[in-house]
């Protein structure tokens, strides 16, 4: 499998702060959905900013789609990566939804005709075409994130980074955005990195990385990560709902064989218990 991002032995610290990353290495496979989970302050968002060249490494190297992140390549790299931030308010620049989506294209001097076409298609992709003349400030949180995603889709990146992009949304809005990104990923064969502390969001990833105090402490499929509920707790993350229910049952004297089952497996097991009675 090709690695679309290679983070090689990097070190980084913020001014007047201790070393956050000390010789960190991580590969992101092309076409995967990678979830990076960890507490606030674990370094998740910093890593995303380093990959996008928004801040500069102390040591080591980051390669994005064959290009080393440095001053010369920075614009080419940013063309490959779209980041959706936590708070869409912080990223709106256009007076209307349409203007906002067009902003990145204008910066790249796309001709007017073509720009109209791309903006229209991007807004259609996120089901926001009807809102094209609205003022972004008057949209709901979920709608704002859709517009932010349209702005990214318009630039046809290869990688989308969701930096806590759903943490301000209600559960329904969160699921809608995740479904949308999933669809866009599939249609355009993108790589998605989702930075989150929502364990349910991580459950849908192909691979999960746990970051704690700047160190990768585990790198596995969601199923294997969730087996180890002790580890999740020790780094201040929740266990998936089914693990919590299993723990409550264990406490009442009913012991399961495994510490993680998904919804269907757990229900099947409960049915088995009932039929044995």
């Amino acid at each position, binding site marked *: 499998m090709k690695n679309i991002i290679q983070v090689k032995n990097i070190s980084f610290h913020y001014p007047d702060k201790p070393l956050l990353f000390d010789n960190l290495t991580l590969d992101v496979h092309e076409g995967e959905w990678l979830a990076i989970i960890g*507490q*606030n*302050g674990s370094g998740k968002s910093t890593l995303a900013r380093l990959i996008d060249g928004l801040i500069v490494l102390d040591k080591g190297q980051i390669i994005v789609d064959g290009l080393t992140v440095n001053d010369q390549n920075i614009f080419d790299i940013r063309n490959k990566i779209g980041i959706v931030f*936590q*708070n869409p308010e912080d990223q709106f620049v256009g007076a209307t939804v349409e203007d906002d989506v067009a902003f990145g294209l204008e910066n790249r001097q796309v001709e007017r005709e073509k720009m109209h076409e791309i903006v229209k298609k991007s807004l259609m992709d996120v089901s926001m075409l009807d809102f094209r003349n609205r003022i972004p400030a008057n949209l*709901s*949180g*979920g709608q704002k994130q859709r517009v932010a995603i349209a702005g990214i889709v318009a630039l046809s990146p290869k990688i989308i980074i969701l930096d*806590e992009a759903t*943490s*301000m*949304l*209600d*559960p*329904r*809005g969160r699921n809608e955005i995740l479904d949308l990104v999933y669809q866009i990923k599939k249609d355009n064969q993108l790589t998605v990195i989702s930075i989150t*502390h929502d*364990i349910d969001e991580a459950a849908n990833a192909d691979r999960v990385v746990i970051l704690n105090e700047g160190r990768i402490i585990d790198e596995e499929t969601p199923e294997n990560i969730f087996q180890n509920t002790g580890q999740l707790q020790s780094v*201040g*993350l*929740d266990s998936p*709902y*089914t693990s*919590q*229910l299993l723990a*409550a*049952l264990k*406490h*009442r*004297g*009913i*012991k*399961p*064989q495994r510490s993680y089952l998904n*919804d269907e497996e757990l*229900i099947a097991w*409960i*049915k*088995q*218990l*009932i039929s*044995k*009675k």
Partner: protein
Amino acid sequence: MDKAVNFEKVTHTYQVDTPFSQNALENVSFTIQSGSFTAIIGHTGSGKSTLVQHINALLKPTDGTVSVFDRIITPKTTNKNLKQLRKKVGMVFQFPEKQLFEETVIKDIMFGPLNYGATEEEARKSAVNAMKLVGLSANFSDSSPFDLSGGQMRRVAIAGVLAMNPEILILDEPTAGLDPRGHKEIMDLARHLHDHNHMTIILVTHQMDDVVDYASNVVVMDQGKIVKVGPPKEIFSDPKWVYKMQLDLPSSALFAQKMIDTGIKLKTLPLTIDELADQIVQIAGKEGKKDE
């Protein structure tokens, strides 16, 4: 119990007399008892934030009356003399840490009391108390609030509100963006302020698990109207209605619903993990023990 808050036929119209005129609240009447823990839920745009901003007169009704203890706010109320009311009603907005601005934590927390006429000494005393309440070590007093973690910054911001000794505390999505540990700390703080300091807590939230874990009273809003008021058990008893309101069930009810869909029979819809685990033990017996 005394009434802490009472809304009597309150309507609030944004941009009155313009073509954009829009009723954000429509003929809303309800009561919050003193010392209660009330959750206000409703999908985005249903009027929750508009509703709570009337409680400390940040917004005034276009029509109707809001009473907070013995203070009455009508459309004619002027902005004079609202200080006493605003001191009694502490409001923690979403992402309150964005409002931090002082050089040190203690100065930031003292700002409110000083603004309300406390002496330097009184303000410092209130601030020290508030820091204790939110579980911030005194060592942080002279740190810059901007050197703290997200969860700590939020606690400084909440301490700034608590330093004014409010009787009512309004929390508008207080845990948005926090990690699970930070989330639990803030919610447990709300519970502590309710149980030990007898504060009236009003929580605006999208998180149904918090509603069942912390609140005893729930107000459901839809399109600027209050559509249901009652204990969590009653509010979530009808899943179809909950979905119609574009809300979700708490995680345990959601999981129980999945069990029911596969043909498992449950007596009632459980709202918490403990309720669900108890029911499973009841129907399955302890046979599972032998299943090792």
